[in-house]
């Protein structure tokens, strides 16, 4: 480990703080640029999708169990399951899959 965890945490916190604080203190009117507003609107979906896959298949003990959890989670979320149901189902799928397979 070449880098200090405390430095990482400081940088992370400073950036997060700035992101939240700068607009409320400086911005007194709405963002006008349609491109910028669209970009900010799409960002969370892309970031979360990119971070979920293929990482979900690498965090579990076997890639298959993570892939099954991914599919199960997508299906449940698609049909309107709650946050708790989706998360819990993903965990159960992995636990069971790693026992059975």
């Amino acid at each position, binding site marked *: 480990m070449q880098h200090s965890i405390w430095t990482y945490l400081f940088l992370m916190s400073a950036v997060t703080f700035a992101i939240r604080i700068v607009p409320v203190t400086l911005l007194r009117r709405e963002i006008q640029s*349609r491109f910028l507003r669209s970009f900010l609107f799409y960002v969370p979906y892309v970031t979360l999708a990119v971070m979920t896959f293929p*990482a979900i298949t690498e965090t579990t003990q076997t890639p298959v169990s993570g892939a099954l959890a991914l599919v199960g989670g997508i299906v449940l979320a698609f049909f309107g399951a709650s946050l708790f149901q989706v998360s819990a189902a993903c965990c159960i799928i992995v636990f069971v899959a790693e026992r059975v397979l």
Partner: protein
Amino acid sequence: MHDGIPIALGYLVVSFTLGIAARNAGLSPAEGFLASLLNNASAGEYAGFTVIAADAPYLTIILLTLVANARYLLMSCVISQKFAPDTSIWHRIFVAFDITDEIFGITIARKGYVAPFYNYGAMAVAMPGWSIGTLLGIVAGNILPPSVVSALSVALYGMFLWIIVPPARADRVVGALVTASFAASFAAAHIGVLAALSAGTRTILLTVVLAGLGAALSPIAEKAGAAENSAASEKEDA
């Protein structure tokens, strides 16, 4: 504070699994507790933990935190429009400090100007729930057997799916972007030059490129439904 209790309970569970991710990245319980207390961000913290785990350059954590938390910039812009004009700068700062998906939700659900003490009440229960949950996740991750840790480690991804899939179903553009993101992320993890980059750097690149493409090709319409638009129309009511 009343509205903050269900949020705090949800946070306790989600941040517990975030704690397991933090433990995998090598954080101590104290470090995880502090990270959550100061950041109050699920995806942003998780993204940061992947950088810490990879021992990547400091610049990576700065850029990735910026990208992963970009939506808070948007929410903060919305909230900035909802303060009474004479709200002091300190109230603005303290309210903004804990703009999370959930607290943003309950804040804009209320009519009229932001009432800082309403937010403080919610924060007073939500923030301890979040940071203590992270701490417990790190501690428990060291005790629990590997099969249980493996199972719990996907809870966070379950939450991400729960956030992105319903809007992907409702909106064709978001759906296309999510699908493209899965495909591009998988490809990037396996293709020569990109695979050599850290996961964090790939996330930054893909987010900027794909969200940029989406915004260029299909900018959001001036309609209700998008968070900032519904809030904007509420402001006009106020």
